[in-house]
């Protein structure tokens, strides 16, 4: 079948090669000369339109010396003050906004107040700018070497080396225009993940199918991550798997914590945009539907079809993003999404209430002189429940990417937090308490069900 298209290629010039592109061509405007339509759409990611739970709202602000932005996205902290309690003592409690289009990624990272309250490393740059060329320059042609160098710079220094938000060269091979993964974080992360599945030495750029690449290029950044060790190496915690439980188990094993919670002293974690991880637990991933299918649907332009490079909420583009596969009306499709999201949002609120209650309890106990020994186990439950909640809270589809999994994770979160409140009361009353069991999708807490997790295997269904 491939040959058919190859034959066609010789026959036709799909585009006019006005300029020569090579592996140093950083500026998307130059690529745009060969591919004006894609470039045009790409530039439209400056648009800000809000949906029920997504998109973003353009909030005007008076530019200042420190922060020249005249428009920002709405503050999530003001929308839900409980977030400040969850993140007490961490930079996110000072500034956390709804994310917006790709065009803003560099500025929003540079000017977030989170940069003011903490000294961030150059590692941050990996997902907020076109670092492919800078990495290779830094590394003397070696991508990974450059990556390691930039990780260890202070953010401000790294910032001076980067000139664009994510650009063509970050996802495309300049010669063939084929998709490619350019991000060390993903190259290493997916290799670790595949290894956990028994596939060793996985090389995404040679082994992934085209359809997989339509997801992996996004997985370069829309993932949970942490900075490993003093080298601040960007690491995707997929060594045991992609589920929240696998990631939790990994962090417990390596003994990682993002910060100590200000009110409770618990060693807590911050989950960040695990779109790729959650998507992989959903029915669309299972059906081979890629990120690009919904977020960059094909668009007819004159006589040809292009991928809409105006990456945005599919709810702003339902007919192309969904209706080729789902013949329902636009309103019906939107309503299906919002119903699923509202269910997730409601559970998320209950889980958030539970967490706040636990934090209040520990805080109060601490104030009235509870010992660290007494607080030990409740704090472990907070770490657990808070990460599970944040994993859904930080995921940006409000559950749509994997609705059942989102509900499951929130259920587990609530159970952990409530168990924390119970453990606290028992500890204070001098009763024995049990720490949370090892996280795993099928074994949640150290109660009696272990033996019952599996029913006896049924006899073969054939007769």
């Amino acid at each position, binding site marked *: 079948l*491939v040959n058919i*298209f190859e034959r066609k*290629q010789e026959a*036709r010039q799909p585009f006019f090669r006005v300029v020569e592109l090579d592996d140093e061509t950083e500026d998307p405007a130059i690529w745009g000369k060969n591919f004006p339509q894609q470039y045009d759409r790409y530039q439209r990611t400056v648009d800000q339109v809000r949906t029920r739970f997504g998109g973003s709202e353009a909030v005007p602000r008076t530019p200042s010396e420190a922060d020249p932005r005249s428009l920002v996205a709405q503050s999530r902290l003001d929308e839900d003050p409980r977030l400040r309690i969850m993140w007490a003592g961490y930079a996110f409690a000072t500034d956390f906004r709804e994310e917006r289009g790709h065009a803003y990624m560099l500025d929003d990272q540079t000017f977030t107040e989170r940069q003011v309250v903490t000294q961030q490393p150059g590692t941050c740059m990996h997902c907020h700018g076109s670092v492919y060329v800078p990495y290779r320059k830094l590394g003397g042609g070696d991508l990974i070497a450059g990556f390691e160098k930039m990780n260890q710079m202070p953010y401000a220094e790294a910032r001076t080396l980067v000139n664009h938000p994510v650009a063509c060269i970050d996802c495309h091979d300049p010669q063939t*225009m*084929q998709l490619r993964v350019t991000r060390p974080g993903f190259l290493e992360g997916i290799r670790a993940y595949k290894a956990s599945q028994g596939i060793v030495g996985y090389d995404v750029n040679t082994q992934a199918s085209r359809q997989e690449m339509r997801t992996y290029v996004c997985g370069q950044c829309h993932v949970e991550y942490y900075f490993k060790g003093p080298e601040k190496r960007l690491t995707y915690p997929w060594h045991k798997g992609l589920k929240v439980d696998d990631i939790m188990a990994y962090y417990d094993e390596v003994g990682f914590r993002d910060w100590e919670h200000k009110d409770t002293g618990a060693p807590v974690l911050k989950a960040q945009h695990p779109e790729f991880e959650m998507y992989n637990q959903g029915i669309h991933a299972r059906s081979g539907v890629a990120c690009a299918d919904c977020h960059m649907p094909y668009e007819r332009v004159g006589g040809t079809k292009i991928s809409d490079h105006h990456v945005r909420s599919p709810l702003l583009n339902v007919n192309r993003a969904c209706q080729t596969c789902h013949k329902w009306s636009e309103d019906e499709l939107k309503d299906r999404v919002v119903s699923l999201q509202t269910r997730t949002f409601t559970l998320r609120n209950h889980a958030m209430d539970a967490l706040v209650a636990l934090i209040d309890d520990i805080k109060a106990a601490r104030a009235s002189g509870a010992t660290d020994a007494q607080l030990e186990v409740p704090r472990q439950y907070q770490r657990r429940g808070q990460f599970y909640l944040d994993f859904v809270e930080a995921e940006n589809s409000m559950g749509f990417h994997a609705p059942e999994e989102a509900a499951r994770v929130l259920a587990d979160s609530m159970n952990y937090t409530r168990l924390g409140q119970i453990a606290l009361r028992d500890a204070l009353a001098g009763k024995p308490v049990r720490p949370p069991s090892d996280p795993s999708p099928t074994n949640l807490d150290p109660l009696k069900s272990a033996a019952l997790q599996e029913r006896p295997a049924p006899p073969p269904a054939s007769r």
Partner: protein
Amino acid sequence: MTSLPAIALGTTLGLAAGIGSYTFIYARGASYLTDDPAACANCHVMQEQYDGWQRSSHRAVAVCNDCHTPDGFAAKYATKALNGFWHSFAFTTGRYPEPIQITGRNHRVAQASCAKCHADIIASMNDAAHTTRDAADCARCHGSVGHPID
């Protein structure tokens, strides 16, 4: 012992050929050799697709064979004969999956047929992001263009 299956197989095949060609003629299996969609519907089991096709965006522009037989006289009639015979056989014996599902070969034929007519539209899709990797599978998004419903 070992020869028994062989014999059985032999007989079945003979029988198969017999039955097959019987239906091939009787149920106007020869309609496989025409391009008239109505002819395909000579088999009620094709009715579903036929009805769908009449409602489809392609009704006016593509008949069954445009999508289900490859280019080129030889290839075309090879496929027709193959499908014609096996489908006649299946029809007669009633041994085929319910619902009917496209087989790998015919799926590829259909896929190629899309490219045949839509080369321009998909030019940038496949050529610009031109790729040693697999080309996009049209049916993944447009599986119902020939005949909506399943």
